[in-house]
């Protein structure tokens, strides 16, 4: 008995010991799904998830956030140091690093990249993240492999801002930038040979409507990586089709699951991992921009509060996500342990309260029970939703019924994801939109461009010259203040106040935060899914295909 127990303990220690690691195998193509066509291959202007999913594998940043530990780790910068007053960061770059076209990477590329992201004419969504109190973070070249970042003020969690800021090849993009055409560079129609990055893979082929194929970057700076020969992103807009392709062995990994499919997948032998509450928050966003045709209603806080009161969040979590989601009343999810404000009120659903709010705002009901505004016009609006997301379509259907109880006629408008994003971000041609954000980083600074009124992702009214409302002005002040506050407790207090304002003003009605549930066929090694986006491919350079799995295809 003693001997058997000892044997068992030895075996167990082999499995759980940090020193134990499965020997990686080189080769093979990892097959994953992409839920929509990428809008661009230009990392400077990419805001849609499909583009970013691809681009994160092609490009690299100076300092990364390790998605599993959520701590910063060296990337293209080997080491860094901070001045005593916290306003200067000196980064030592790795030597011998080359872009995927073989050209060397130096401090000049860093300075160039920084200038591009900060260029107002380029309208990069990253720009807001690189500004402190309206002042840009300066990047100064010290020598070929040393750069210094000069901050206008000490910046909380400064190291994290380097994550996801892709370093660009100056030799490729400088001419377009100088000609003022950087936004036109690296479109989806660009030849793959013209695109160079520092990530583990490089673009091999884009077949519109079919797939984006990446191949190993032969110049990748991490020794012996990547293990894979490439990644093929198959364009599969329909979640059910993704599932069928996964079960049939055409896909190796599923980054998102329909919660109803979990038991089915487990029955098919797939390795399903539920990481618990994630950072993604689903919300209904009002169009509060001057272009909104329903601005008179949406500008009324009571109107927005009425809709929020009538929203059955518990049912959304129970029915749409089979209970694997958390109802939300604010923009930070319970999965974000550091920044979640548990004191925000969680009022129970109340249609009566919703009606009361509407009455206060001067809305009335006609004899048929339809809501009319103070001028007597019937209240109706559309919810824009991605046609490729079954969950969001289902949520929209439930919201339609919820708001129907207030006498509001809601039309659901399913739209291809790129078209939807264009309407929300670029042209503001929508009434309301059902979207999701979050997952990039737990730190609030990652969402500066969402909460600052000047931000391009300030979805309800983007790119404001001056805050349109007092409360947006207050959010601006708080976000800027928390950015430069080094005391963690004080930062939390400031950001809690932002959450309170957002929850009270409701430019978005927060709905639910789904758990992060992923699956793989059991053939992917080094598979370490994380709560931060991209849940499954964040360590794509380290992933490998086990022999059996690769041969089984």
């Amino acid at each position, binding site marked *: 008995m003693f001997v058997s127990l000892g044997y068992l303990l030895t075996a167990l220690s082999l499995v759980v010991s940090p020193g134990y690691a499965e020997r990686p195998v080189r080769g093979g193509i990892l097959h994953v799904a992409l839920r929509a066509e990428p809008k661009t291959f230009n990392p400077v202007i990419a805001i849609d998830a499909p583009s970013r999913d691809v681009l994160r594998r092609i490009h690299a940043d100076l300092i990364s956030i390790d998605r599993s530990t959520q701590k910063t780790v060296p990337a293209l910068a080997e080491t860094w140091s901070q001045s005593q007053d916290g306003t200067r960061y000196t980064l030592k770059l790795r030597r011998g690093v080359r872009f995927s076209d073989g050209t060397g990477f130096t401090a000049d590329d860093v300075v160039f990249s920084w200038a591009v992201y900060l260029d107002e004419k380029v309208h990069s969504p990253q720009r807001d993240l690189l500004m402190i109190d309206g002042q840009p973070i300066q990047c100064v070249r010290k020598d070929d492999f040393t750069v210094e970042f000069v901050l206008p003020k000490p910046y909380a969690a400064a190291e994290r801002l380097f994550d996801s800021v892709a370093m660009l090849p100056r030799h490729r993009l400088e001419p377009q930038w100088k000609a003022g055409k950087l936004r036109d560079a690296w479109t989806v129609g660009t030849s793959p040979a013209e695109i160079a990055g520092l990530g583990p893979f490089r673009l091999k082929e884009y077949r519109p409507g079919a797939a984006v194929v990446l191949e190993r970057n032969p110049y990748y700076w991490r020794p012996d990586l990547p293990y894979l020969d490439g990644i093929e992103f198959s364009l599969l807009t*329909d979640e*059910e089709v993704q*599932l*069928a392709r996964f*079960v049939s062995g055409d896909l190796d990994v599923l980054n998102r699951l*329909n919660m*109803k*499919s979990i038991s*089915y997948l487990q029955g098919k032998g797939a390795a399903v991992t539920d990481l618990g509450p994630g950072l993604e928050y689903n919300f209904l966003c009002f169009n509060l921009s001057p272009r909104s045709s329903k601005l008179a209603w949406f500008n009324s806080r009571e109107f927005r509060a009425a809709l929020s009161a009538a929203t*059955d969040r518990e*049912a959304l979590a*129970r*029915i749409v996500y089979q209970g694997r989601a958390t109802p939300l009343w604010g923009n930070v999810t319970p999965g974000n342990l550091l920044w979640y404000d548990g004191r925000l009120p969680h009022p129970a659903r109340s249609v009566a309260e919703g009606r009361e709010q509407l009455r206060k705002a001067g809305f009335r009901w006609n004899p048929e029970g339809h809501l009319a505004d103070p001028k007597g016009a019937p209240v*109706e*609006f*559309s919810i*824009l939703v991605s*046609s490729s997301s079954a969950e969001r*379509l*289902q949520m*929209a*259907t*439930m919201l*339609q*019924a919820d708001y*129907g109880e207030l006498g509001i006629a809601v*039309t*659901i*408008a*399913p*739209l*291809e994801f790129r*078209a939807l994003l264009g309407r929300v971000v670029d042209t503001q041609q*929508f*009434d309301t939109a059902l979207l999701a954000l979050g997952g990039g980083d737990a730190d609030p600074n990652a969402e500066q461009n969402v909460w600052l009124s000047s931000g391009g992702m300030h979805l309800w009214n983007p790119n404001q010259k001056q805050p349109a409302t007092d409360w947006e002005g207050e959010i601006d002040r708080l976000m800027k203040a928390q950015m430069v506050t080094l005391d963690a407790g004080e930062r939390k207090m400031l950001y809690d106040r932002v959450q309170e304002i957002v929850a009270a003003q409701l430019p978005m009605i927060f709905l639910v935060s789904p758990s992060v549930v992923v699956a793989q066929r059991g053939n992917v090694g080094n598979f370490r899914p994380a709560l931060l986006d991209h849940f499954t491919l964040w360590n794509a350079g380290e992933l490998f295909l086990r022999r059996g799995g690769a041969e089984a295809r």
Partner: protein
Amino acid sequence: MNRNLPIAVLAALVVVSLAGPLLAPYNPLEQHREIADAAPSALHWLGTDDYGRDVLSRFLAGANWSVLAGVSATALTLVLGGLAGGIAGFNGGWVDQVLMRLGDLVLSLPWLYVLIGFRAVLPLSMKPRAAVAVMLALIALVSWARPARLVRGLVLSLSERGYVEAARGFGVSGFRIFLRHVLPGTWGVLAVQALVLFPRFVLAEVTLSFLGLGVGEPEPSWGGLVLGLKQAYLLPEQWWRLLPVCLIIPLYLTCAIAVRRFRASS
């Protein structure tokens, strides 16, 4: 089997579809979320859907829309096709050439892409049924060419019959000859076409729903009911998701049998 049985079944179906909303035991739009995805029971014969809506009620109310949409689109196609084919065949010459080349053009259109593109430019706030009615009208507009060809061929042959020649000899006007002596000869072909096209148009609504272009929520339609089958992996546990399909299949079978009988008898 009675020769008229398929026609009787179809007629009954149309009647049921007209009375569908009145026969529905529950409000087809009302969500009872506490009984979502419930199995068939004495209260809900076909079970409930993802939102706890009664599936039988949605089937009956959806029949009203789906069948009427199918009938309307069929009628529009046959009127257009009958007229175009009749005029082309009876007049011949450049009129025939123009109409038939136009038909060739329409037949070569990738209608699915046309529909997807067209749907994208429709106003977002358009009511779900209005949007699909527009789409079906568009399908009908691009479907007239096939019946037009059949009718044209028939009219060409009818125009050379002795009684038509005789009417011409008596100085009867071309329009009157067409109306009284040629057009009635095409009824049989048009009836068969109606039986072929009708289920196709009903199916078109189902196809549009699968593509996300069908009748939007919360309106019930057969396409919307069939949509539940996309989650095919749920069928072993929720077999009742198949029931609406089992009820739709007889429509196609009946039409197919009716077409065969009609052809055999003519």
